[in-house]
């Protein structure tokens, strides 16, 4: 069972979520501030962080950014809907998903499982493949660009693997939400857009004119075609 670090300042929410998730078998550590959460990372070694955006002192977005500087630890933000601006900033900072409070335990757990779930490897497509300067290792779940390994957050990695598994096929954002995030079809497409932006920052030569992850206006995204230069 995954180890979850919950960073939430409200004691009752923290206690309720702890109670619910522990009963489902998760190992849980709850802390009240971002500083305490960062300190607990090394000692508790969580598999996933549940991060409230509204924290006293260091806020959730800053905590998320600090985590992303050093690790690919999955991060799910806890937010109240309506704090739209926070959601966008949080996603830009590298969060993999978000949950709107109040939420039932089963919803929280479903999201945790979805983020942690490894993408099914397509049959006969194991091992390493190259797309231009990118080297994707579907078994080892690593991506390198020009031989240099890239640090990708789980949602970024899953999105890249999903898109590159079917080069040049267009996926709508609703489809990507369902496949990659296991959200409902009507979920928040900004998750996809923010993740694409982050991914482009890391893999594209010129993020403004992407080669690998291209936008198909009115439909969604596709991987490639790359053209001749690097193949």
């Amino acid at each position, binding site marked *: 069972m995954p180890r979850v670090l919950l960073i939430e300042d409200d004691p009752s929410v923290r206690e309720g979520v702890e109670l619910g998730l522990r009963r489902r078998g998760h190992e849980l550590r709850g802390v009240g501030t971002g500083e305490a959460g960062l300190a607990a990372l090394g000692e508790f070694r969580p598999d996933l962080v549940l991060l409230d955006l509204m924290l006293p002192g260091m806020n959730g977005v800053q905590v998320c950014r600090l985590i992303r500087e050093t690790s690919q630890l999955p991060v799910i933000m806890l937010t109240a809907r309506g704090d739209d601006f926070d959601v966008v900033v949080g996603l830009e900072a590298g969060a993999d998903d978000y949950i709107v409070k109040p939420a039932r335990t089963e919803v929280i757990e479903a999201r945790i499982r979805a983020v942690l779930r490894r993408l099914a490897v397509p049959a006969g497509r194991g091992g390493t493949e190259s797309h231009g300067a990118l080297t994707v290792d579907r078994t080892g779940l690593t991506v390198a660009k020009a031989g240099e390994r890239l640090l990708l957050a789980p949602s970024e990695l899953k999105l890249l693997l999903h898109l590159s598994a079917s080069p040049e096929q267009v996926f709508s954002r609703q489809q990507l939400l369902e496949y990659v995030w296991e959200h*409902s079809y009507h979920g928040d497409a900004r998750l996809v857009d923010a993740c694409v932006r982050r991914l482009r920052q890391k893999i594209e030569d010129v993020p403004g004119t992407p080669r690998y992850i291209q936008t198909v206006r009115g439909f969604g995204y596709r991987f490639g075609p790359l053209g001749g230069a690097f193949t």
Partner: protein
Amino acid sequence: MKLFAARLGLRTRLIAAFLFVAAVSAATTAALTYREARSAILQQAQDSAVVQFRDRVGAQAVSLPIDSEQLRRVCLQLARAGGGRGWTVFAEYGKLRASSSDRSSSGVITAGLRAATRDNTHGSFQRVVQDGRPWLTVGMPALFDRGDGRQPTGLVLYAVMPLSTEEANVDAMVTAARDGALPALLAALVPALLAARSVLRPVRDLRRAAAGIGRGELHTRITVRGNDELADLAWTFNESSTKLQESVEELRRAEERARRFASDVSHELRTPLAGMLAVTEVLDEDAGELRPDTAAAVRLISAETGKLATLVEDLMEISRFDARAADLHLDEVDVAETVRKTLQGRRWEGRVATELPDGVRAVLDPRRFDVVVANLVGNALRHGAEPVTVRVSGGDRLVLEVEDSGPGIDDAVLPHIFDRFYKADAARTRSAGSGLGLAIAQENVRLHGGTVRAANRPVGGAVFTVELPTGER
């Protein structure tokens, strides 16, 4: 005339009145001046002609009786003496007649003048217009004095002269009066326009200000100039609009407070609810191990917590609409797929019939559209009766119909069906819905620039129709 006045603007009427007064003044002045000048001109001409003729006649010497030759000579001498006057002289003596022209008698001299001249011992004149030409005729009896008082010689002389010079002068005067009056009228137009402007400017300001108030620009005020009736009106207008503005601002503040309160309450409720909702599962699972009463109480709390969470969520949503903080995240989608996913997500596929043609695409916010479809279908399932049908058609506008087979909506309820917390039956029985579902659906449709309406089908049951624009916004 009333109609005539009503049709013309204030400006036109003011200017017309001004011009009328100016025209009457100009005309009266011109007419009086003309009359005076005309009589002065004629008087002068007549008097000098009479005096001159008398003098010339007085310079004549005759012998009595006068024979026709002498008579003719007198006429010719007088005609010459007339010089530039250009008069024609006629003479009568007894039954003799002579003239300075080749006709011995004139057609211009009237019988009245002849009688007056013959029968009196004074001169006479008469203006005669013949064939449109004015003439001056002067009759002059010639008397002589032998020391015993003047007595008539029997000689009577007439001068006939055309008044063409005088006529030309009078005509010139008329022309001058006319040429002077028209520019004067035109000149009167300038003060007329200025006066109209000075009166109309406050009126126009007032109209503009009133239109501004009508558009909701309640801060509109008029500059009060002077202290006439229009200034009073402007002052009253300002006073009224200040009051209006205060009232409206007070109302807005009250409404704002109410909305903020609803929003704050929902916000505050959310945090405790987050904790509670997270543990309802625990309650549900362990209820079986409790005493029956306790278990029932625990299950009740768990269930109501869920409903409370839904209610708070809906309240938050409504608050965002009220605060105009609701955003549209548009995406181009396949409408049939979107509706199908909504039904699947709620596990309603088995209970709802669909007529979803392929290939209908629309630019909309999928999450909000999901809410619209879900709320309408949920409402149909809860308050209507199955079968419930969802029908989509494309075209210029996307049309979505949700039909049920229930009793339909009471006519009294129909106008209020989208009101918040409006319950069809007065007993306010609670149902699974928060009472905000249709209101939220309507707000979402409006956010898309579309419309939603409710109606009863002729065959029974209610139908909700959503129309949305399909293109980019």
